């Protein structure tokens, strides 16, 4: 290393040394590029978009009128648009609850019982579906849920086909096939976001001290009582942390309901249609504010429930 140190220093290198010795300046130099990109370009364009919700679209010429008005917001409150919002929020809530129920046993087993290679295997088995292609996963479900697909075949083989037909004949949740019903959309949402719930719940469960569980058992609590009164309350922030992902991801998705499900719009699709075919950027912007506001409220509650410490 000594010959390296003795090499003559160029002006740039002396400048960098001088910068490093001034912590504030060094910090500013490090942060300049990321902040310029995210703080100015990204955040700037985000606000520019949201501000457009106070413009309006001239119905006759199709031109955006750049004057302050609340008419776009009034338009957002139309019953058809409120329907879209209610549908999306209910779907997000249902998906979140279902994912929490499905994630818990996996996370609990991985956190409390899996050891060594088994633990690594659990981790990888959750990470692989999380990171594998989103479109491929949606596509797989389109294959599975199609009328001639695997679900119909399996149910036919075990003689439960009438049960499926009966289910599909039900009013709201049924449809011509699973891939064209609310149930289909629900299943795919649950599937795609499940790993996002497992990881924070597992992380929260890992932090439950073993001696608390032993103490609970020593004090005479049954396994069920220990679970209800010790483990569940301590793991709850993890569930809330996971629900941030499942809820917010469902809220903004527009591809899954487009590929698996009926013809009813979700928030993401409404935004997409308004900015694309309809060319109504102000209404698209107003629609975009809805998930941001809902997530803002959600995050405030989540913070109170201690979810941020569980992330």
């Amino acid at each position, binding site marked *: *290393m000594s010959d*390296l140190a003795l090499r003559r*220093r160029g002006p740039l*290198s002396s400048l*960098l*040394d001088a*910068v490093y010795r001034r*912590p504030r300046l060094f*910090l500013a130099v*490090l*942060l300049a*590029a*990321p902040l310029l*990109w*995210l703080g100015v*370009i*990204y*955040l*700037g*364009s*985000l606000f*520019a*978009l949201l501000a*457009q919700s106070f413009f309006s679209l001239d119905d006759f010429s199709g031109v955006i009128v750049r004057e302050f008005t609340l008419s776009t917001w009034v338009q957002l409150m139309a019953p058809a648009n409120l329907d879209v919002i209610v549908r999306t929020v209910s779907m997000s809530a249902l998906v979140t609850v279902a994912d929490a129920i*499905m994630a818990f*046993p*996996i996370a*609990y*087993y*991985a956190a*409390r019982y899996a050891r060594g290679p088994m633990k690594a295997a*659990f*981790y*990888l088995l959750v990470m*692989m579906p999380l*990171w*594998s*292609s989103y*479109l*491929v*996963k949606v*596509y*797989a*479900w389109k294959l*599975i849920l*199609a009328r*001639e*697909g*695997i679900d119909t*075949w399996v149910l036919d083989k075990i003689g439960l086909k009438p049960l499926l037909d009966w289910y599909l004949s039900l009013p709201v949740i049924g449809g011509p096939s699973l891939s064209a019903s609310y149930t289909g959309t629900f299943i795919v949402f649950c*599937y795609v976001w*499940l790993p996002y719930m*497992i990881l924070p719940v597992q992380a929260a469960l890992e932090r439950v001290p*073993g001696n608390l569980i032993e103490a609970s058992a020593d004090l005479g609590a049954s396994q069920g009582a220990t679970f209800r009164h010790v483990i569940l309350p301590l793991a709850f922030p993890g569930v809330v942390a996971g629900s941030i992902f499942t809820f917010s*991801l469902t*809220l*903004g998705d527009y591809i899954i309901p487009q590929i698996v499900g009926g013809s009813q719009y979700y928030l993401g699709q409404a*935004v997409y249609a308004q*900015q694309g075919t309809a060319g109504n950027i102000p209404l698209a912007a107003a629609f975009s504010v809805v*998930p941001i506001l809902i997530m803002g409220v959600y995050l405030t509650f989540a913070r109170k429930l201690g979810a941020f410490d569980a992330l």
Partner: protein
Amino acid sequence: MRSDEPSLLLKLSAIGGLIFLHWPLAIIVVYAFTTEDKSYQFPPPGLTLHWFSVAWARPDIWAALTLSFNVALVATGLALILGTLAAAALSRAQFWGRDNVSLLLILPIALPGIITGIALRSAFNLMDLPYSVFTIVLGHATFCIVVVYNNAVARFRRLSPSLVEASFDLGADAFQTFRYVVLPNIGTALLAGGMLAFALSFDEVIVTTFTAGQQTTLPIWMLNELVRPRERPVTNVVAVLVMAVTFFPILAAYWLTREGEHVAGGAR
């Protein structure tokens, strides 16, 4: 250490959950070999390798694959630079607005992709940037920064500042200190973050739909096939291909961060 055993119900529901997570991926692989090309019939009436050669001979698939690969490569490069800078700045320093900066880093993936996409699209529009490969890369880099940042910041926290100070005291300049002291310590974390960023960019479709012009990345190609299926068997083959391309970086990223737990100066 543990006196209790998992109940049968817990075991079954944990294993059942894992199977639920994996069997759709297995189904895709089965469908790539089916001889039947009109519907999604199960079980496949026969198995063939024919569709692999059909897909191999398709120039549009190759073009989409090459574009996705190049975009992911450049976006990852940009994200590595910006993410590392942000991680170096935020790992130890305490300053006013620090939490806001980390929130800002997470925002592009915390907000629904469609909002990020439309916001960027209108910004490019305002800046008179034509939608091109360049704008796709800019969009991808924006949400890849946080992946690199997350990996790098943990490693920076474990890197003792006294190592850097010692390097300066011994006469090394800033470049040498970065090259010989900082980089060896954060290298594997950067590689892991870079691979995850690559996988994320290679697979991204939502932001891409808004920032692309006429360009077709591989996910856009798949989305078009999903919405208006033309050649299902070829789509199945491409799906398997996409799975394979994203599978290896993820596995590698896992091994890299797992092996790299011990960092010089970490055990202070």
